[in-house]
């Protein structure tokens, strides 16, 4: 079964395009990351899945149920951690967890203590008096307490220190091993790439790439040259893809023969050169920074 399936999902806020024609499928059992900068459309996408807002065009399903028509039914099986957590400041963590269980008609409260221990939550302190770290942990506990089939987390790493990020992913991994599908959004691929099975990259409301992180990626290099002068045609003939060109500097990606590259470069009067193996992060950053037009989109869906 598909955990998430969206078809031509499009959302406008008045004149502003927040999502455009997003087609995305997440299989059950995956840990899926939606990566993009601020304002890329990540939260809008999640809010449509949870029926906080309605799409202008297209439709979506969560666990094979229509997001708009079966929202309450979906939420019986979904846990959600918002980006900015604003729960009742006067309620303690224990009260919030008990309320969540009550909403799910779960009478036994045995799950509260182990979950609080695993996430190191002091359940007696009021939510309004908790640190950002602890607020996030409480939100995660509330999202996990009813053992959901799908867990949706909007920027879960925001505000967490690296140690807590690692702890959080251990908890998520554990839930995933028990059968929970994880869908999370993040601004930073590095934070999530060790844990996600697949990631989708989003910019200006469009998903432009989906990467399977369980497969070995083809390696390529990023080369930056500073020189008095150079002939771009030589580099292009070589197979280099220009990323950034100015009067005395050129930055290009290259995945061909290294010997040929060195021969070509040796014919130039180079002042400085940097060669590094490109990561997926570099590739995506190149895309974000490059201002690519629509026809260069590499739609991986």
């Amino acid at each position, binding site marked *: 079964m598909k955990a998430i399936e969206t078809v031509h999902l499009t959302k406008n806020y008045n004149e502003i395009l927040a999502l455009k024609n997003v087609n995305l499928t997440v299989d059950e059992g995956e840990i899926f990351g939606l990566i993009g900068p601020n304002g890329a459309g990540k939260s809008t996408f999640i809010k449509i899945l*949870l*029926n906080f807002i309605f799409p202008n065009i297209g439709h979506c399903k969560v666990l094979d149920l229509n997001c708009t028509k079966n*929202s*309450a039914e979906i939420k019986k099986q979904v846990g959600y951690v*918002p980006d900015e957590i604003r729960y*009742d400041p006067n309620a303690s963590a224990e009260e919030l967890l008990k309320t969540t269980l009550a909403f799910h008609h779960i009478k036994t409260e045995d799950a509260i203590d182990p979950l609080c221990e695993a996430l190191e939550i002091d359940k007696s302190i009021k939510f309004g008096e908790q640190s950002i770290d602890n607020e996030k942990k409480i939100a995660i506990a*509330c*999202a996990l307490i009813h053992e959901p089939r799908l867990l949706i987390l909007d920027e879960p790493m925001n505000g967490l220190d690296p140690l807590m990020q690692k702890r959080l992913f251990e908890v998520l991994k554990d839930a995933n091993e028990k059968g929970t599908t994880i869908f999370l959004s993040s601004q930073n691929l590095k934070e999530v790439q060790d844990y996600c099975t697949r990631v989708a990259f989003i910019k200006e409301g469009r998903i432009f790439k989906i990467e399977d992180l369980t497969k070995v990626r083809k390696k390529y290099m990023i080369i930056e040259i500073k020189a008095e002068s150079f002939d771009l045609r030589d580099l292009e003939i070589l197979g280099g893809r220009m990323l950034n060109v100015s009067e005395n500097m050129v930055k290009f990606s290259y995945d061909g023969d290294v010997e040929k590259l060195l021969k070509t470069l040796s014919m130039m009067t180079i002042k400085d050169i940097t060669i590094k193996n490109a990561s997926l992060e570099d590739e995506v950053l190149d895309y974000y920074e490059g201002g690519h037009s629509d026809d260069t989109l590499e739609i991986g869906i």
Partner: protein
Amino acid sequence: MTLLKLEFKNIFRGLLFWMGILIVVLVVFMAFFPAMESSTIQNLVRMKQGALPAPLLAAFGLTEVSDFSDIKVYFAFIMQFINIAIAIYAARAGTSALIKEETDGTIEYLYAQPITRSGIVAAKMVAHFLTYCLLIIVLEMVSLILVLVFSSGKYEVIVLLLNVKGIYLGTFISGFIFMILGLWFSVKLRSTRQIGLTAMWMVFGTYSIGIFAALVDAVGFLRYLSPLDLFEPNHILASGINLKALGLWGGVVILAIGMTFAFYNKKDLKV
């Protein structure tokens, strides 16, 4: 049921505040009644009222020169002001019902739970309705005790009971109308900052229309736009509940409830 309990918990403190204030106001107003029985004060009131034109008296629910030494008349008079306060409470309660969670951001937690939007509206409406009923019942009981204490046994208990009950029925109806109108506005508002102003406009806007309609015969029909005027204590004492007005506003209330559910179900939540 879980949401209903949460709502009760959230609005109970506000209810106690309003209840306390209104009880104090009632006690203070009623404490003036013994003074109203003195002939000096009666003469003064008659002289002042006699100087006012009849339409202006009517605008304030005084169809003729009132005898404030009659506790029924005096109580009906002070209940005009209590009614306005209760209308403001009800309008604020309704207006804040849906927008407050959106502005505070707590709707994100709530709507991540397995509950429909209609369920949210219904739970909030029922919670506010029940607390409103509690407010009315407590105030009615306090009023009855005060009226009985200050009447000094001059009237039959049953007469006073029926009068207080009749007046509070009007109070309940006008406040309920404002609560439901407020609920409808709550779907449309952008932020809690608009709650106070919206509630005040609703109550004093319609109240002013009622006064205007009483002053100018040609636009007398506009009185039907003012719940506070239609269910005003002196009118109820004189001729009971205006059934035509009750039917008219009953229709408006049903329409407003229907529209509240319909619009909330189609609304993009501000989270």
